[in-house]
């Protein structure tokens, strides 16, 4: 009795001692030095600004302007050509006039304005539509530095980078006093974030390297490493950086101009500081396409599990067993005398003009990789022919063994009638075949379908855990 008590005491002490090892995880060893990691700059709007010029003078009261379709004077920085990148309702500053909304984009070069010009515009006068963006710069410091600062350098135009007009080769910070506000949050070992500063390229404390605007957050505290920090430049309702105009006219829809920005972990004063760590990242600013950019085409694809005790494709799932978005656990429900039925839900939305398609394939037949001879559960051959990856057939008798699937339309007409569960089941193949598509072709909102898996095995099937993986690929049609 006494021995067992002592033993229990020893076990408890050993258990307590083992927990002290875990305490070491609370205080991980710090890294010595490295570049900042996970650096990114996400623009709230990555569309290029428009800076073109008139092809012909426009009289007072006239609201029709014609744009140059080629670059006339590269030095004037009016590198946007034609009207392809403009959109209706966009504010255009024509010559010395205040911005006027574009009513319609008439032709490849002509734009009709909502109202006529107040001041006459001369041939070759600039036509400007600014695109501004909030920059959300994220990074993770690699080094501990007490009472330091983070400085983000954003490329600036080489001539007038703070006049409130788009620049050819960098971002414009706005006129003096209109600089975007800067704020920082996150990080470890930070007691206080001081109010961030924005300094135009070439101004005091922002001269080296040349042609970069400087955005800085200073902090007090130990300044730990390994925790993400976010610097936000600009606010939704306030000032923002003005995106550049195109670097040249030879571009294609969606083509990006890329700019290299720098994130620095610094110490010292604003005027005289030293850089501890630095990482260079790139941001892309793209040309807008009027036809599609009004609402940017996007493709969304979702896979969701089906809860336990639900019915899909007319079949109830085994009691208490559901699926997740990435696994269909047949487990012990697999039987030699009854079908096991499980399902998942697929959902697609797209505003792409041509619609979408979803294909399905399997890596291989369900295979027990850990058993001798790697036995497989065959893909179904249904109980009628032809039963192929593209043609379903009736499969109601458990005499026909294997693994297959069928589909049910839930929302929209995503599943071809011939592939719906009323027409039976089919096997997966290693080559992708269509399971969903937009019908009629075109934009769809939440096309939804159930994929219903079915399995039954023969009495001689070797006991074991069988697995494969099914790959669903959603693409827009071309």
């Amino acid at each position, binding site marked *: 009795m006494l021995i067992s008590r002592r033993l229990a005491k020893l076990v408890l002490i050993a258990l307590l001692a083992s927990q002290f090892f875990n305490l070491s995880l609370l205080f991980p060893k710090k890294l010595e030095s490295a570049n900042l990691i996970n650096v990114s700059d996400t623009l709230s709007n990555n569309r290029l600004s428009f800076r073109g010029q008139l092809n012909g003078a426009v009289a007072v009261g006239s609201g029709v302007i014609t744009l140059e379709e080629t670059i006339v004077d590269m030095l004037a920085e009016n590198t946007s050509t034609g009207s392809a990148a403009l959109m209706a309702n966009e504010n255009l500053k024509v010559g010395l006039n205040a911005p006027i909304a574009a009513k319609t984009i008439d032709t490849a070069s002509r734009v009709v304005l909502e109202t006529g010009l107040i001041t006459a515009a001369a041939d070759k006068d600039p036509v400007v539509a600014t695109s501004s963006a909030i920059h959300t710069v994220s990074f993770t410091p690699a080094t501990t530095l007490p009472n330091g600062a983070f400085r983000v350098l954003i490329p600036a135009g080489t001539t007038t980078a703070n006049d409130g007009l788009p620049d050819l080769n960098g971002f414009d910070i706005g006129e003096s006093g209109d600089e975007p506000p800067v704020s920082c949050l996150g990080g470890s070992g930070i007691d206080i974030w001081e109010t961030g500063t924005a300094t135009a390229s070439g101004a005091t404390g922002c001269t080296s390297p040349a042609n970069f605007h400087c955005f800085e957050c200073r902090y007090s505290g130990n300044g730990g490493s390994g925790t993400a920090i976010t610097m936000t430049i600009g606010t939704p309702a306030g000032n923002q950086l003005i995106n550049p105009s195109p670097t040249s006219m030879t571009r294609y829809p*969606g083509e990006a101009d*890329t700019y290299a920005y720098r994130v620095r972990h610094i110490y010292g004063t604003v005027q005289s500081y030293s850089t501890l760590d630095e990482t260079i990242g790139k941001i*892309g600013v793209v040309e807008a396409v009027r036809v599609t950019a009004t609402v940017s085409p996007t493709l969304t694809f979702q896979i969701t599990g089906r809860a336990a005790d639900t019915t899909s494709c007319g079949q109830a799932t085994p009691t208490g067993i559901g699926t997740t978005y990435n696994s269909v656990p*047949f487990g012990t429900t697999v039987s030699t005398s009854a079908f096991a039925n499980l399902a998942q839900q697929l959902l697609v939305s797209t505003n*792409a003009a041509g619609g979408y398609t979803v294909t399905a394939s399997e890596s291989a037949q*369900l295979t027990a990789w850990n058993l001798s001879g790697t036995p497989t559960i065959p893909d179904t051959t249904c109980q009628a022919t032809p039963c192929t990856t593209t043609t379903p057939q009736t499969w109601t008798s458990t005499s026909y063994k294997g*693994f297959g699937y069928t589909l049910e339309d839930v929302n929209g007409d995503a599943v071809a009638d011939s592939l719906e569960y009323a027409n039976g089941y089919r096997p997966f193949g290693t080559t992708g075949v269509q399971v969903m598509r937009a019908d009629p072709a075109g934009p769809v909102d939440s096309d939804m379908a159930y994929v219903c898996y079915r399995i039954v095995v023969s009495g001689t099937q070797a006991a074991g855990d069988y697995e494969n993986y*099914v790959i669903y690929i959603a693409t827009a049609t*071309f």
Partner: protein
Amino acid sequence: MKTNVKPINTNEQIIFSKGAVLVFAHLFILACYLLKFAPIAKAQSLSLSLSLWPPILEAMMIPGKSITQAYTITNSGLDTIIDTKIFKFEPSDEHGNITLVEEVSADQKCPLFSFENANLSLSVPFRLKSGNSEQVILKITIPEDCPEEDYYFTFLFSTPPAAKIGQSVAREAGTIGANLLLTVSKDGQPLRKGEITEFTLNHCRKLPLFNFCLLDSLDPVEFILKISNTGQAFWKPFGKVKINGLLRQSAEIEIMAENVLTKASRQLHGQCQEGEEIYPCPLGWQPKFLLGPYRAKAELAITSPQGNKINSQVTFLAFPFKLGLAILVAFVVLGLIKNKVRT
């Protein structure tokens, strides 16, 4: 009455209280550990949900030049790992769907693909947290010696399947892809030509020896128009189907400008518009009543409205067969009733 209460042993009491302290200490340290390292449960849907912008890129490139394209991938589901791959594709049908052929290998030369991001590389997985987006900047470079032809690829963003769970299971991997249609041309004017391979009425019924379709006056007119690309670069058709009837009935159906890839054919749709949204719809016409002979002519231009013209025509005869049959049946029934009344 004797109660069966066991007397408390002092030694046992001490050992018990020491044990309780040890157990409590153990649980306390464990709780501290879990609070520090256990993930905080977030309110998020248990699904894979990826969005991709833009879903298609069309570009013409000069050998020796590069372009960059920014893709935004958004994760609205659970935290996941994203792997990026590029596959060659071929058209799988006449409706704009694709079949992935093979993954672009490391020694792929025409074109060369790479990422411009500082922290991302092609085929190197990255983590994408729930609710976050990542801008992936794809650089496409065409070396000087690339043949002048079309190159079709799909840029895939894949999630890994679930980990093994020690039972029979089908594991799912979700993938979302954007198509890249690239034309390589030195002078920007690749050979673009094509032909109409089929232009007919859907459900066309022809009488023997007659080369026109028969249609009921109350039926909608629906065309099948297929074209093939026999040139060296993909293009879009621009044009209309013009319908003219003997009784001065006429209509024009705008054709949707859809991509026709090289060595492939495509069934064309009509173009419908709702607000500013343009989308394909069935290539058809639905007048209230058709009568007599009609001629429909498909007039298409390749690449632009001013491009090379191709055309084809079909004739059809509309007659009120159903109405005539109904009237005939009505007369027969009336006649029978009349006869019966007389007799």
